[in-house]
């Protein structure tokens, strides 16, 4: 009976994963970890679910968690999915969570008596989008190590590489899942933030292909990884591959193309006025050039294939309007 430690358990993704593990009767205990004091109301009612409020930025707390409750519960798998969801909030504290906490966890896993598997949820943002390379990004493609990469991306890349360096050198199996953009609220999705505006701006003359992932699909990929018998880096694509303009339209927003150089200052002004989290500098390359994850390795070795498309709010609304035979009146 394998038990699972889930970090970042109070995020929508962490909750979805925790519930998915609990739904499988052959699993052992689930130890959910979050920063919030009261993370899971279900913990009081579910015999297999335990919740701990831990600040992973403190190495001593992490150590005591792993060699305390994790060892006592006989947990054998860590799913590390904790990350700062607000990309505007970066600095030493964000770096401590993204990179140092990851380093600490993967170091401790190596000498832990019960842990056998470390699953790290990385992101497709670690890849350098380069139109001179393939539109379909494989796991072997270059990472964004450019000096002009924003801090949020550099942290992601460093954490990913930190885990990569342990692969094959520890007793535990190490898996890195580089997930496509998860289009959901409160999971740090830049595209989701971008789509919250009624009017979405995109660069004139460019309409790149995007791939987006739904919460059920990333949950399923993580579930498959918790049973994996292999090490490796795996791309996790979503079921929706479409141009940026179609994504905007399907979300029920209006898309306007304007000259690319104007986008960064406009979005900076908009962010300062409205407090939105979307940062164009993080996205300017993928708003110009297609980048779709190649999931063939995950399909072959993990048995993962995306099956749950995004429930696009614009599509539902359009269908509703069509059914009534009327015209659309505005965004949802």
């Amino acid at each position, binding site marked *: 009976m394998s038990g699972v430690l889930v970090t970042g358990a109070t995020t929508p993704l962490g909750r979805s994963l925790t519930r998915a593990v609990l739904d499988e009767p052959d699993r052992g205990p689930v130890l959910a970890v979050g920063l919030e004091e009261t993370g899971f109301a279900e913990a009081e009612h579910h015999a297999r679910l335990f919740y701990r409020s831990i600040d992973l930025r403190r190495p001593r707390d992490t150590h005591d968690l792993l060699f305390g409750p994790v060892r006592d519960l006989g947990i054998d798998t860590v799913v590390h999915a904790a990350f700062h969801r607000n990309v505007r909030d970066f600095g030493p504290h964000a770096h401590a969570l993204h990179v140092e906490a990851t380093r600490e966890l993967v170091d401790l896993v190596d000498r832990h008596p019960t842990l056998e598997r470390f699953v790290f949820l990385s992101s497709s943002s670690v890849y350098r989008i380069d*139109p*001179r*390379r*393939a*539109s*379909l990004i*494989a796991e072997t493609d270059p990472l964004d190590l450019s000096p002009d990469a924003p801090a949020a991306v550099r942290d992601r890349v460093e954490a990913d590489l930190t885990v990569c360096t342990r692969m094959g050198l520890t007793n535990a199996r190490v898996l890195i899942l580089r997930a496509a953009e998860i289009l959901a609220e409160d999971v740090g999705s830049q595209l989701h933030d971008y789509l919250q505006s009624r009017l979405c701006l995109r*660069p*004139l*003359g*460019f*309409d*790149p*292909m995007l791939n987006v992932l739904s919460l059920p699909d990333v949950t399923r990929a993580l579930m498959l990884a918790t049973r994996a018998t292999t090490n490796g880096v795996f791309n996790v694509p979503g*079921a*929706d*591959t*479409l*141009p940026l*303009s*179609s994504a905007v*339209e*399907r979300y029920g927003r209006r*898309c306007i193309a304007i000259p690319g150089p104007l986008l960064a200052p406009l979005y900076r002004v908009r962010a300062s006025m409205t407090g939105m989290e979307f940062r164009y500098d993080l996205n300017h390359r993928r708003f110009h*050039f*297609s980048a*779709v994850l*190649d999931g063939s390795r995950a399909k072959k070795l993990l048995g993962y294939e995306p099956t749950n*498309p995004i429930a696009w709010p614009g599509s539902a609304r359009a269908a509703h309007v069509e059914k009534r035979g009327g015209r659309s009146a505005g965004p949802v």
Partner: protein
Amino acid sequence: MTLAARIHRALRRAVLPAREQERLGRVEFQDAGHGFDLFGFEPDAFGASIGLGRLLHHYYFRVESHGVEHVPATGTAILAANHSGLLPVDAALIVVDVFLHTEPPRVARAIGDLFIPFMPWVGTGMNRVGMVSGTRENFRYLLEHDELCLVFPEGTPGIGKGFSKRYQLQSFRVGHAELALRHGVPIVPVAVIGAEESWVSVTRIERFHWFGAPFLPLPATPFPLPIRHHIHYGQPIRLERHFDARDADDPRVASRAAELVRERVAELITQGLALRRRHAR
């Protein structure tokens, strides 16, 4: 549906005859879920481009097609053609010709140069009608997914060679031959006769590198001349009958394989020019 998609659909309905619209519906298309494939190919945009390209094909360049039965009806294949002109008119004519004359209808996926995605509108537009940026991984993906690929192994030196070197093939790049050998894919040699005289460049500006372009050719005429084109398709070349597929990584083998393809294209050009001379008499 986006405005662009609506325009593509309306244009496709307006310019593509009913029979071709029915054939377009039978095109093998790997929909990634929203009416586009992974590279951005969109059947409506392709249909609209075929509808417009058909007018050029039939009435402006009066293209005569020879040996199109050599294009496999199904499965992966590579079309390797000579290259010329300032814009890829030859590529457009081959794509239209293949669609109009194959049964079931096939889409030739042109493998474009790496600077094309940097060009506003052009990169996206080319993707919508089936072009794929010419990286090894993109090419490999197409070969593994039963696509018909169109390559110009001369590359940009082909379009920059000038009128005095018309129908003289430049050296061939080897990537297509290496991948064809490794994947056991047939290469169909293609000769385009007429394109090398229709839009001649008088000179080129070597220092022009906007969007990563290698140079800017300056044309003698603002539009290509309405010269009759002949497109010749040769017998498919099975490289694995000449070379061992395990040697695909050997640069000498890949080079010899590319040279074999070049010879077949050159033979086809010679035959095509002779045929054109006979027709002219």
